[in-house]
């Protein structure tokens, strides 16, 4: 099972190394790890996607909480939440029919072409992991040159709680 864990950590040198070292040395299977600043300069937010059963998840959370610089750990996936993954992808796109086809797909997926070259384009796309993955699959036949993703970030939802954990129409 996949869980999304969010950890608020002190913004001090070495905290990422400490956490990733702990996860590696205890053999936890981490699918993605995203780190970035928060509204508070002293704190950073880490979002993990952990694969494992409930016992594994319990240990990951407890071991994270034991790290002195970890302020708070939440299993986001037990609540209603919004998740996003940001991707930049370079795709082969000769001018002409192929390029139009790509533009059309980018529009359908609410992405953006952010760089245009002679033979290729760079596309920015964000959304739920599944959507980003679907877009990657659509681009594959054109020839993917390069791809980079942030890994999943997530936040608990406090507005609508209609059972739907997410709606793509929220996309900007």
């Amino acid at each position, binding site marked *: 099972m996949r869980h999304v864990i969010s950890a608020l*950590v*002190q913004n001090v*040198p*070495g905290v990422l*190394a*400490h956490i990733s*070292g*702990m996860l590696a*040395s205890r053999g936890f299977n981490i699918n993605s790890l995203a780190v970035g600043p928060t509204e508070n300069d*002293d*704190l950073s937010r880490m979002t993990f996607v952990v694969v494992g059963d409930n*016992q594994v998840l*319990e*240990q990951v959370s*407890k*071991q994270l*909480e*034991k*790290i*002195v*610089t*970890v*302020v*708070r750990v939440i299993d986001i996936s037990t609540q209603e939440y919004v998740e996003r993954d940001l991707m930049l992808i370079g795709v082969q796109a000769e001018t002409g029919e192929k390029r139009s086809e790509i533009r059309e797909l980018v529009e359908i997926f609410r992405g953006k072409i952010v760089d245009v070259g002679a033979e290729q384009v760079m596309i920015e796309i964000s959304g739920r992991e599944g959507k980003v993955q679907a877009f990657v699959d659509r681009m594959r036949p054109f020839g993917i040159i390069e791809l980079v993703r942030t890994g999943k970030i997530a936040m608990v939802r406090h507005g609508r709680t209609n059972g739907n954990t997410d709606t793509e129409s929220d996309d900007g």
Partner: protein
Amino acid sequence: MATTDSATTNQMISGADILVQALVRNGIETIFAYPGGASMPLHQALLRNKEDLRTILPRHEQGGGFAAQGYARSTGGVGVCMATSGPGATNLVTAIADAKLDSIPLIAISGQVGTPVIGTDAFQETPIVEVCRGITKHHYLLTDVNDIARVVKEAIHIATTGRPGPVLIDVPKDVQLDSCVPDWDVEFSLPGYRAGVATEPADEQINQVAAAIKHAKRPVIYAGGGIIAAEASEQLRELVHKTGIPITMTLMGLGSFPNAEQLSMDMLGMHGAVYANHAVRDCDLLIALGVRFDDRVTGKVSAFAKDAKIVHIDIDPSELNKNKPAHIPIVSDLKLALNKLLPLVEYKDDIDGWREQCQQDKAANPYKYDEGFDGILQQHAIRELSNLTQEMETFITVGVGQHQMWSAQFYQFTRPRSWHSSSGLGTMGFGLPAAMGVQAAHPNALVVDIDGDGSFQMNIQELAACYCEKLPVKVLLLNNQHLGMVVQWEDRFMHGNRAHTYLGPIDDAEAAGKGSGPFAVERYPDFVQIAKGYGCGAASVSKKTDLVDALREMISYDGPFVLDVEVPYQEHVLPMIPSGATVDDMITE
């Protein structure tokens, strides 16, 4: 404790002085420190503060680390060691890892190259914080002199609260030399550390435990190092006496309950007592207090206490459900939990049959050895030492191996913090330096390192520190010329092939496993001469009839003493549950 007047005079002082004075202000009285280029300013500051803080010079940084552990383990306070950068710091690593696994409050301070050259592969530079991340409870790399007072305070707080553990403070040389006006009243900056306040159990949880005890037909208490760390031995004893529930202890838990009492089922686990392991196998309620279901205790974990309801109380939430799921898992300080539980329990007069079964098993399967052996067996030497020292304030430390297990089996412990063993990490060479630290904390007590010839040689240089620092540690050296525990495994599981387990010259017959007779043909090295070379008293004994007198001579010697005891190398530690096996696979012959 004397304090300096700098706080009132707003005087600028050096980082090194701030660090040392911060130690003093936080109650540290002894430090084990070995100097080097990057820690010289710190040593100058130690010298300036020698009235308040005793500096003991070990002869190897690892010895200093274990001495600090011995100090911490025997007092319940924090132990402090210091080394220079690079090799000095890496020599501390084993002692730090050891403190992590046994939950010992240790402050390790390392000098570091100056901040301008950090990361340039400077002389004697190692990224010691990186090295130690996974083996410390917390770690600091100081980069600003203004942080020192706070960091020392925080480090001691973290090391000693919650589940104790080691904290590393790495101090670059330029930060030691920089100066500022220290703010001794600075607040902690620990938004993520919640263990500072002792966790209390919910009434509901304790009621559940009391109910489980009330309904149990075959209850057993399984007590570990957490009892000792929580200073809860008194409460534990009261629980056993009040309820009449038999108790077994882990290697770390020895001393929490007196072995001599009837309800003591002694140690459990791989080399635990037959009756302890039987009791845990047969129990219907296992009350696990301050333990972690270590593989050396459980063997095959799924078969451990298979039919029992499990109560597990520990201060560290991550220990609950880690190795073995508990039916009643409780995160709590053990002293608080037991104090809450005690008024709710009463004497269990409905388990007379169970107590009787335990007693019969205990009588039928005691720890035993060949008492008619013509020579000194390791077990016999330990039992005699135990008999001679029961009435004295005695502390025992050990190395790792057969002698360690036999000490755990045959020495009769009565007090918590009187037994010191590298239990989790199993570090050979622990015994002598740990004894040195215990002696520094208890100058008038008898401190005996029961050691093996393998372990002893891993930190034998500390005889010099014992002699020069006037620490009259005694070493009971059970010398079988072999790495006995590995030999035992070779005998049991590897057709007796000797693979580098003989400690004498390679052309001796024993090196190839072709020795004849129970004793090695040669005695190498000459430990008596070595000990005398260091200025210690020393004697050798091989006749059983001479043993007690030799022990008396050792005990009464004024100064450090090594008693080299000739023992056979084919003796095995029994009983034994092979690794990963169950109690029913126990080897007793």
